[in-house]
């Protein structure tokens, strides 16, 4: 099955079939299938197939591949053929044509309809869990397929998948599938956490435009009705059908032929250098660069903008957690406290317990010992009370983006908070505009770049204007430009809204602009230090003990201090340059 290719065609195509509604095409496809089921004449089936072929040409998608994908199931139908074969060709032709025609109708439908629209339509006629299950399955499929692809690539690179090594290949494939299963269950747990955090109330797919019909629906509906009409004609008036089937067949062939010629002519006329659907991305890239420059400047100017308050937003007091495998994380030492309007960074190497701390704050873990209070509540027991005031950005945003489109995803939290459809859309519009992702509103999230996905997830987290924003390793996998852009965005949001931000990271270079307060964790979850970035950087030995490499500037000025030149501890390059220039001028004047 070529699910990934078909999904790409559905989202990237630009024919009138792509622009017609899921409802119109769905009804047309059902009409084609009904006609196919009713048909008992190979000529009728051939006529229906030719009408579908016209649709394939009209879709302007790779016709040969669409035909071959629909033809694949006929291999299975050969078994049915073999069981009924009497030496003639009529029955085999009938069975194979039925299989081919029905499959072609469905393949054409799914290759021209983005899955969110299709599943929104299906969700209306299936029980809730099934409807949502379809969506989660399809969404998870791409995540898991990518995982599987990575694992198989790694296997091949390491010689684990070779021709003529059947037993070895089978063993390696089972390991890969086993690992995939484990990761799938992990993914399901994260999805559960996301659903919970985002206030899932039992209906995932909403707000799609699947039912908005237009003039583009005319052709598929007319073709479907024509197919059904022919089938009814053949059933109800066999004599009339017998006298006209040749004409019908020729007409259908002419329709398919004309569509093919028209499509080829149109392709030739419209083919031009640079034509493609990534032009939007290029515009977006240039916009991003422009915005990035501005944001970087503003973020540098607002490096020390945090204002402390005595109001505690979150507190974790000597929490201990034992995982099912026996691993123990003890978040003791200093208490973790975040005050209202404060930017708090949790710094620590991999495995130090940053995620454990965060999961306690989010109520995803219940402490074995100790106390966790967030916004005045125990998050594990009273999560419902804090959820509307909480925004979360998970490390892997792929697991967080649940909406069929960006706009839907951003509005998800607002809908769950009980706002009406119109108000939710308005809130989503404001949030997308603020985050600079309004141009992505109708895109399917899993086709966005890593930076765009994070911004979309952030827009979704901020849509309800939360008091507390929690971000788990938000800079992982981002290039320096996107990282700087995200830091600047967070700083601006903090300045505008005064919300409390808690971030986990091991990017020490970002601390000066990102943190009012830093908590330093070592292996096992021990909180060994807290303070301003200046205070933490002034103790490079402690950073090294925590397996964190201090920033280069810190190392340089520490070295100068050890050599007897005390210039303090600069927080950024500009600050360091000023101090060094002052020293040089002093030396020159002396």
């Amino acid at each position: 099955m070529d699910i990934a290719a078909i999904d790409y065609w559905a989202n990237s195509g630009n024919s009138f079939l792509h622009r017609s509604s899921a409802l119109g095409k769905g009804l047309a496809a059902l009409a084609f299938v009904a006609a196919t089921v009713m048909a008992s004449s190979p000529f009728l089936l051939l006529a229906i197939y030719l009408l579908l072929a016209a649709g394939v040409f009209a879709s302007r998608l790779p016709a040969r591949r669409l035909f071959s994908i629909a033809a694949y199931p006929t291999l299975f139908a050969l078994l049915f053929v073999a069981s009924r074969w009497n030496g003639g060709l009529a029955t085999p032709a009938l069975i194979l044509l039925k299989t081919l025609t029905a499959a072609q109708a469905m393949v054409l439908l799914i290759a021209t309809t983005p899955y969110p629209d299709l599943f929104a339509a299906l969700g209306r006629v299936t029980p809730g869990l099934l409807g949502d299950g379809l969506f989660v399955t399809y969404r998870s499929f791409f995540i898991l397929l990518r995982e599987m692809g990575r694992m198989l690539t790694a296997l091949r690179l390491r010689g684990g998948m070779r021709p003529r090594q059947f037993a070895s290949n089978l063993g390696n494939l089972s390991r890969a599938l086993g690992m995939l299963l484990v990761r799938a269950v992990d993914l399901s747990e994260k999805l559960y956490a996301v659903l919970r955090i985002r206030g899932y109330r039992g209906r995932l797919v909403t707000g799609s435009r699947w039912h908005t019909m237009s003039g583009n629906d005319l052709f598929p509906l007319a073709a479907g009705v024509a197919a059904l009409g022919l089938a009814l004609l053949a059933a109800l008036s066999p004599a009339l059908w017998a006298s006209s089937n040749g004409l019908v067949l020729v007409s259908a062939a002419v329709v398919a032929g004309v569509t093919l010629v028209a499509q080829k002519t149109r392709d030739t006329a419209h083919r031009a250098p640079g034509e493609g659907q990534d032009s939007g991305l290029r515009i977006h890239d240039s916009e991003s660069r422009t915005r990035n420059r501005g944001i970087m400047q503003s973020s540098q100017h607002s490096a020390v903008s945090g204002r402390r308050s005595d109001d505690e937003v979150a507190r974790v007091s000597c929490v201990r957690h034992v995982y099912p495998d026996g691993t123990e994380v003890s978040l003791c030492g200093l208490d973790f406290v975040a005050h209202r309007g404060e930017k708090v960074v949790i710094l620590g190497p991999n495995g130090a317990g940053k995620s454990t701390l965060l999961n306690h704050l989010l109520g995803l873990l219940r402490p074995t010992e100790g106390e966790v209070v967030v916004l005045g509540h125990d998050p594990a027991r009273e999560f419902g009370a804090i959820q509307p005031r909480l925004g979360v950005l998970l490390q892997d945003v792929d697991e967080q983006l649940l909406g069929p489109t960006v706009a839907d995803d951003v509005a998800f939290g607002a809908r769950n908070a009980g706002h009406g459809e119109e108000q939710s859309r308005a809130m989503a519009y404001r949030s997308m505009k603020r985050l600079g992702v309004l141009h992505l509103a109708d895109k399917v999230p899993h086709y966005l770049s890593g930076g765009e996905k994070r911004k979309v997830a952030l827009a979704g987290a901020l849509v309800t204007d939360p008091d507390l924003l929690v971000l788990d390793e938000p800079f992982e996998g981002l290039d320096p430009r996107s990282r700087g852009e995200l830091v600047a965005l967070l700083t601006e949001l903090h300045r505008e809204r005064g919300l409390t931000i808690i971030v986990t990271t091991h990017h020490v270079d970002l601390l000066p602009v990102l943190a009012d307060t830093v908590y330093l964790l070592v292996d096992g979850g021990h909180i060994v230090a807290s303070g301003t970035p200046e205070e933490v950087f002034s103790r490079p030995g402690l950073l090294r003990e925590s397996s964190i490499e201090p920033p280069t500037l810190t190392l340089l000025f520490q070295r100068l201090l050890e050599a007897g030149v005390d210039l303090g501890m600069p927080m950024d390059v500009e600050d360091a340059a000023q101090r060094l220039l002052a020293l040089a001028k002093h030396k020159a004047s002396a």
Partner: protein
Amino acid sequence: MSHLHIPDGVLPLWLVALGWLLVGAILLLVSRRLGKVERGRQLPLLGVMAAVMLVGMSTEIVPIAYHTNLSVLAGIVLGPALGFLAAMVVNLILALFGHGGITVVGLNTLVVGAEAALGYYLFRGLWSLLRRRQRSPAVAAGVATALTLMLSTTLMIGIVGLSNLDPSTHVAVGPESLTFRNPFEHGFLSSELAAVEAGNEVASSAPALDLPAFAKLVFALALIGWVLEALLTGAIVGFVHRVRPDLVSRERAAVATSVGPLRKSEPYDGRGGGLPSGDQPQHQEGRPG
């Protein structure tokens, strides 16, 4: 090998309708059973396991181009109720891609859903029998898969056998619709097909289903599939039992069948087996200090 993708239009409508009715009844039972559990808990597990089945179907074994089914594995992990739902989701998506007819999703779901449910019970039973052996989960899963596929393939053959009607004469409109005349009998389409039909041989010599021949053919081909699927499922379960034993454990079995321990709004245990922390007291109680 039960994964045959029965296409649209080759089975009689009464059988297709019966398939939908049976599936509808089973879904009703499943819904009642699962209704006690928070949907936000079921949905992700259902979705990702159905996705794993689809990924398995998209991954071929080099060099024989066989793809896995993993329905028994889904049953082992999800339990019979959610496993049946996962089978339905997978069949719906497959039908959208032309793999199996959209009208026969009901019948196809009965076959694949039966694999998930039967596989689950057989695995549990066999594992209990082999409990003391080191490789017992892998062996139990392998044997359960082979047995389940054998039974589900028989079920599929039984369904086709029930049809025992020629699609060209009984599908929808009866034999009278076959009395058409080939308009190209002397023209460019005067092929063998046309010649046969022109003499109305279709109606007179419409072949009935040769069920024994069909069964022999399917069983012969299916044998390869059973062996491969059993080997793969056994190896996967063996691997998972080493890496994350909780996923195929008895405790999980209890969750999958009774669905009792899953309670609304309970936090999960992070790195554990997908169960709320309260469901695994053995890990919490044995803490030091």
